[in-house]
């Protein structure tokens, strides 16, 4: 494990930034640095999924990664393409302004290689549909903490069907209180109360879509 990966996985902010600055200064390849940062984040994600790390470490490592990226990105060539395993649209549904669960899930998905198009909180069904159409993303993740959010989730699934794209979009709903009965009511393909499990489900969606 490189010094940089070790510093990221052990949440040592100052050390990560010092290493990145130094390596950029001596002319190291920014793409290689980016890969190392992403490798470190993947390990953080794994540690979260196995229960070794908690949300706090995810939040802090995400911040460290963001700062490292702000140093690396200006050095990347304009045509550098960052590989992802898939794209998905996410948001907390209309009428609900809670963001923590969504942010956790989005962070884990990014660490696992997804490109997450995060629409924020209180997102209307039409906004979800518009983003799914524009991006062509094959997965929609909807989050909600309060029970009235279930109605908004259902309205969003209905809007996707009405738009005629339901057959190409897999829908997963998440939040601390969702259960199978809610998934059924909403018409989603999957539900989860656990961010790590959510990543596995989304990877499975991508794997099946690639067949």
């Amino acid at each position, binding site marked *: 494990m490189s010094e940089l990966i070790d510093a990221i996985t052990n*949440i040592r*902010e100052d050390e990560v930034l010092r290493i990145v600055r130094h390596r950029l200064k001596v002319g190291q390849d920014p793409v290689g640095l980016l890969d190392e940062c992403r490798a470190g984040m993947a390990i953080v994600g794994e540690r979260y999924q196995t229960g070794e*790390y*908690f*949300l*706090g*470490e995810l*939040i*802090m490592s995400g*911040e460290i990664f963001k700062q490292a990226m702000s140093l690396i990105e200006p050095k990347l060539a304009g045509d550098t393409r960052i590989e992802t395993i898939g794209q998905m649209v996410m948001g907390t549904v209309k*009428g*609900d*302004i*809670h*963001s*923590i669960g969504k*942010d956790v899930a989005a962070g884990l998905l990014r660490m696992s290689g997804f490109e997450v198009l995060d629409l924020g909180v209180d997102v209307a069904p039409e906004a979800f549909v518009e983003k799914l159409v524009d991006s062509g993303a094959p997965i929609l993740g909807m989050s909600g903490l*309060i*029970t*009235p959010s*279930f*109605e908004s989730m259902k309205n969003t699934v209905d809007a996707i069907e009405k738009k005629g794209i339901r057959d190409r979009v897999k829908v997963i709903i998440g939040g*601390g*209180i*969702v*259960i199978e*009965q*809610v998934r059924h*009511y909403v018409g989603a393909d999957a539900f989860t*109360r656990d961010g790590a499990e959510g990543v596995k489900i989304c990877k499975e969606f991508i794997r099946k879509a690639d067949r």
Partner: protein
Amino acid sequence: MIQETMTSWERVQAAINVEIPDRVPVLPMQTYYFACRYKGLDGYQMVKERERAVRAHLEVYDELGGFDGQVIPGISFVFPRRISGIIAEPLYKVPGVDLPRDSVLQHDEREILLPEDYDLIADLGWNAFAEKYYGKFNPRPASKILQWGERQTARYVDDIKVWNEHGVPVYKGGEVFSPLMFFSMFRTLQQFTFDLYRRPDRVEAAMDALVEDFIQDAIEEVRLTGRTWVMLVLERGGCFYYPLKIFERFEWKYIKKMTEAWVKQGITPLLHLDQDWTLNLPYFQDLPRGCICEFDSCTDMFQAKEILAGKQCIMGDVRASLQTHGTPEEVQEYCAQLIDVVGKGGGFILSSGCFVPVDAKFENVKAMIDCAKTHLPAQ
């Protein structure tokens, strides 16, 4: 129906004392929003049309067949006559004003306090800091803020009176955050987490300085209302959020200090433990006797019973979504399981996991209440 030999108050007190009551007490948490919606009031009316809402609340209580009292009598809060108690005022989002009319009251988390405030609070304590600097987090004149707080307190006391006249006990007299919950809410979860890594000593110094003010605020609130429970609002310090080393340094030592101080004063601390606290449960064995550990369905209740049996009263935890999208049979089955396992040997209060959701099905809430009245713990 189980033959009742205790009053609701006695039954609840037996559970708190980890004794075996005549039947398991049932206290759905905060039935106000649910009752109002059931009677056709929208979110705006729930907040603004007080008389109608109070009437709806009473009617639904009766239609449910009654239960062992109201933990929270309405939607008002209790504030000692100090600016420091009402920092949250600008964060409330009201249906029909800031949110769609048929939404529910929500808390819009924003960065109200800044990193430099840790040092000021460490020097002054919370109350003196808030008196001196309230303009930093609330643009309204102090007199207006205080009037708002007084109105809230007066309404809270009125709500207690209404229920008592209806023959229903009310339990909660005060409510405060733990220091960790407080800073997490008013710095935001993200910024506060950064603080824990970047400036932990300054965070701890501020917590050390404000905890005594919070203890005294709760005692003052209990004095104002004449009710003996203090709800200690906890969510952000458990194992969903942070490892145990953070919990031990920034949450547990303050929980212990606060609960010990209150129990000495004859107050019942209601630890409102939202989110997952399963890994933290062993610590709660060392809480003073006379607390209630209330879970919202994210913590494993059966593990809680294994760890806390004979030591602490456990309360909870019918999941909100089971109340909205389950069937009465499913609710009954889960409640019976809770009564059999968690209720065995006493020390259990059956309740909703956190508040009864606004859109809960009436028959599901009734199924929870009826189960407590009909199902004795399996021996």
